[in-house]
């Protein structure tokens, strides 16, 4: 009986495995294979060597990290105190959450297009800045680093916010009370109790945000200078694939992207396990 039911349970895994193979393992394996071959199918490391020896390609790593890391840090860094204040609910929470969720539903291109007009030299934002005499001439928010960073930040922030809000409001409120009763003020309670308990959530939302930001493409094209300072790594892959029609080289770049993302995730998770050694449950009692 026991064996049968276990086999039965294993059968239930089949759809998930098929799904995983079709959507993840097969494309990944195919990409890895393509990146390690020439157009004629023979084995080579040339695609990787070309990327690492081509100064113009190589610097896309730095450019992309230069966008993804600060933007992600900032998004998570703003989300943490905001969620802390909203953890027991605040008046107008629904409206606030609504405005944070809207960017998710609109999609990258629409936001970028909107930003082009809203934040452009003649856009409302600059008109406001000029009207308030905050600057002499229009501040440039588009076609530069700021444009890309703001756009990427706007898309990533809602995820960080919603995820962390769920996380922090799941922490047993008695833990805060207990800490207070033991003599801790609000600040000490935050750093000694809430923050450590939020670390797993912070780590996960950082990883998620980072991966999204690292593969930034439309924002960089629409709001940056894609040929120069904001030539991100995804753009390099795109150009090799669809401008030079070298899919092998493009595959190699996407493998390198994956490797960098995994590396950053590994670093974040190492930080997490260093800080958070206790139970994985969120202190539910």
């Amino acid at each position, binding site marked *: 009986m026991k064996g049968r039911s276990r086999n039965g349970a294993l059968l239930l895994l089949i759809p998930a495995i098929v799904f995983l193979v079709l959507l993840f393992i097969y494309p990944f394996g195919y990409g890895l294979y393509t990146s390690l071959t020439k157009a004629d199918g023979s084995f080579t490391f040339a695609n990787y060597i070309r990327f690492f020896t081509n100064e113009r390609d190589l610097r896309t790593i730095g450019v992309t990290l230069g966008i993804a890391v600060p933007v992600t840090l900032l998004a998570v860094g703003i989300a943490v105190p905001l969620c802390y204040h909203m953890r027991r609910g605040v008046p107008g929470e629904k409206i606030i959450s609504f405005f944070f969720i809207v960017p998710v539903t609109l999609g990258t291109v629409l936001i970028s297009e909107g930003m082009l007009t809203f934040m452009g030299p003649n856009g409302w934002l600059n008109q406001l800045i000029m009207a308030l005499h905050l600057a002499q001439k229009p501040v440039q928010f588009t076609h530069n680093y700021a444009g890309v960073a703001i756009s990427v930040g706007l898309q990533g922030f809602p995820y960080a916010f919603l995820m962390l809000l769920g996380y922090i409001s799941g922490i*047993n409120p*008695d*833990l805060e*009370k*207990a*800490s*207070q*009763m*033991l*003599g*801790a*003020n609000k600040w*000490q309670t935050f750093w*000694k*109790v809430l923050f*450590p*308990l939020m670390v797993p959530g912070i780590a996960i939302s950082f990883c998620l945000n980072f991966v999204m930001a690292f593969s930034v493409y439309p924002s960089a094209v629409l709001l940056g200078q894609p040929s120069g300072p904001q030539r991100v790594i995804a753009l390099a892959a795109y150009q090799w694939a669809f401008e030079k029609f070298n899919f092998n080289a493009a595959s190699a770049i996407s493998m390198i992207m994956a490797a960098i993302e995994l590396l950053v995730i590994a670093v974040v998770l190492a930080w997490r396990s260093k800080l*958070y*050694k*206790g*139970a994985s*449950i*969120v*202190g539910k*009692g």
Partner: protein
Amino acid sequence: MRDFKRISVRRMTKRFGDKTAVDDFSIEFGKEEFVTFLGPSGCGKSTALNCITGLIPITSGEIYIDDECIDDAKTSVPPEKREFGMVFQNYALFPHLTVKENVAFGLKLRKLPKTEVEKRVDDALRLVHLEGYATKFPSQMSGGEQQRVAIARCIVLEPRLLLLDEPLSNLDAKLRVELRYELKALHERLKVTTIYVTHDQAEALALSDRIVVLKLGRIQQVGSPQTVFTKPANPFVADFVGYKNAWKGKIEVLKENGGTLGASVRTKGALIETKLSYPEGDPRRDAIIAAYKSGGSVTTAIRPEDIAVIGQGEGAARGEGNVIRCVADLVEYQGHANSISACIKGCEGERVDLHSASDIAFGEAFEACVDPEKVLVFAMPEASPARSAP
């Protein structure tokens, strides 16, 4: 610990919107006293406790430690400055810290030297019999062990007042009794002033110097366990400490006989003769005399264990008084006795609960009687809004 003589709570009230969770709550705690808040779920025990700690702001009233006002609804000393310790119902141990770090939490905040922290943590863990557990995490411990960590975490700081919110309610029956003994022993040793919240009368009776019985946020009675158990102040308290049989009726005859009152109460199911030892000057005595004179209703209260099954026909010999004729419709075997619930013959809806060692079968008709001295009588307050249910 800063020394003090007494903590007084004066007319403390807490409202949530238009719901009054704690109503006009006044009480004094003497140093080293063990006071229990006893009451059914939702009567405001936790709210009262949280108000005293300052974790919930009070709506009105005052809290004093000797002459120092720590809360007057407008200004209040924050909880972390009151030097009170609280054990939460779900323990609220920090899951990311080991047992040792949990217990050391408050000491470290006080910036004590490391060696002293170590020493006091070790002492506290020894006191709650958890010497070997220092490096474990709360999730690796049983409920009872976690409970002890929570207690150690408080007492290591030598609080002026220790507050325990239903600390045993999540444990199994055996452990509950064990930990109850330990709590009692701990209090004997440390003499820390304690407020203990429970809905379990056995816990309250076993542990307390004084019991505060609560209903709908209002204090019903304050007294020693003996007083509350044998001289409940009103039908609610009586019901709560086990006087399960409460029957309404009218006093037919009232004889005053020195210290005792002999009231014959006609209830729906039976004529109850009573012998009330309410001395001269007792407000309950005056209330009953008043009820007799005005013809107002009274409630009789009898414990199930004070009602005895008598042999067939014995009732007729005794006459009408205190004989209850009934039919068993629920018999529960409870080891030492059967717990019987029966309906009274000829009275739709009137019930009697009793304990009996003799075997009564389901549906069996029998007679039972009660000793007049074991019956309590309460004059019903005529439409007093404070005591009536919402």
